[in-house]
């Protein structure tokens, strides 16, 4: 029986008093979420990632509302997004990748099953975000149909661009330039990274899309759908 701790029928004491107990019970869940993103064994004492995950879980308890759908998928969404943002602020930003194999490794008991109402809610949220996203991209001269032709087919290229976007998003001057002029400051980016100018001309629109997606806080559902994980830096 699935216990939704925040339904009015269940004890509302979870909401304020038994928060600590509730978090204790779900430590496993929190660990698994963080493990999936970081892809390495984590320890509660040493690793910052786990404390960040805890904080996000707490925040999810605070901000959860019925219309956000299933609580656990909402919590894992928050945890994932916060961790990705956290990586950006670290000095040695790890190499991020789009992970393709996530689905195969999940055991049955770790998958979050959603009922149709919850799926509906998620879809609605995503649709709202997509609307905002397409309006935002329009200001940069990008639309989804053009992205179909312009998104790189090889996953390594996409990983590369993901990391470039991450670097740009953490650099304030570049972001200011992008937001004010709606263009990429290609010279600055070429200086900052070791990539060639031709590379940017080719993937300009896709890179802009990624930067907008990563930097903004308005697209949590879309961002968490992308399987962004920590990868080996050897995969360059």
């Amino acid at each position, binding site marked *: 029986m699935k216990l939704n701790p925040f339904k009015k029928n269940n004890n509302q004491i979870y909401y304020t008093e038994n928060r600590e107990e509730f978090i204790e019970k779900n430590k496993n869940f929190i660990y698994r979420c963080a493990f999936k993103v970081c892809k390495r064994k984590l320890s509660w004492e040493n690793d910052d990632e786990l404390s960040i995950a805890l904080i996000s879980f707490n925040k999810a308890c605070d901000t959860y509302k019925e219309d956000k759908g299933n609580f656990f998928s909402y919590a894992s969404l928050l945890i994932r997004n916060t961790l990705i943002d956290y990586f950006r602020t670290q000095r040695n930003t790890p190499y991020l990748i789009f*992970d393709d194999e996530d689905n195969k490794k999940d055991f049955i008991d770790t998958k979050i099953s959603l009922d149709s109402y919850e799926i509906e809610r998620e879809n609605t949220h995503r649709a709202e975000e997509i609307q905002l996203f397409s309006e935002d991209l329009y200001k940069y001269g990008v639309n989804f149909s053009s992205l179909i032709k312009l998104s790189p087919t090889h996953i390594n290229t996409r990983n590369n661009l993901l990391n470039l976007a991450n670097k740009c998003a953490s650099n304030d001057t570049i972001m200011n330039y992008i937001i004010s002029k709606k263009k990429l400051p290609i010279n600055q980016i070429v200086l900052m990274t070791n990539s060639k100018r031709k590379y940017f001309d080719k993937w300009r629109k896709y890179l802009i899309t990624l930067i907008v997606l990563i930097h903004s806080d308005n697209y949590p559902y879309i961002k968490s759908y992308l399987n962004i994980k920590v990868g080996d830096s050897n995969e360059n």
Partner: protein
Amino acid sequence: MKTKTGIVMELNKSSACLLTNTGEFVKVRINTPLPSIGSIYSGKVINSLPLTKKALIAASLTIFILFNSMIYAYSKPVTSVVVDMNASFSIKLNHWNKIIKISPLNQAGEELLSSVAIKNKELSEGLNLLFTKSYYKDNNHLNEDNCEIIIYISDNKTINISNFETSVKEKNMTLSVNYESSEKINNEIKHQIMNKKRNQNNQNNSENNSYNNGKTPSNNSNGNDNGTKKRKGSE
């Protein structure tokens, strides 16, 4: 076609743009029931070539087909001509009266052909070449006056061979042109080829026999028979 899963970002008439969980924007085919924007959908990927590639492929295909059909039309035999000027030939012409195939029908013809390049020339020009070559050859019979050259043309086709006619007249010979049905001409050609083969076989046999004659006396009768056969074939 591969199937891909992702968030529906945009809907069109028969396709949708998905964003996959590996960050790829793809175009997929949509079936009923239609998905809504924001839902997660799986569909078959539509691969569309850019316009310039399509145009290039179409153009190269048409050129290829055109080229092949031109070659086919050029080398299709339409008229059959048999020439007898002591050296006999069977000539096949295409629509434009160019010689596409010429085959000798007797020994003299074979010898003559080996020294003349006649393919792809107009009929008149080709006949002229053959005629002049054979006229100036050492052992030809055309040098005798009032020799007749006979030409058979299939299916009542009127072909301009006036050049040839004039050059024949200059050498005091007559040219007769007959129009026959293509059936008759083909039969005539077959008949001539059979004769030619028989002649060749007889020649080979007689050579073998004359070699054997030195060894076994019992082959004498064969030698005589061969002699009579030879005479028949040379008619």
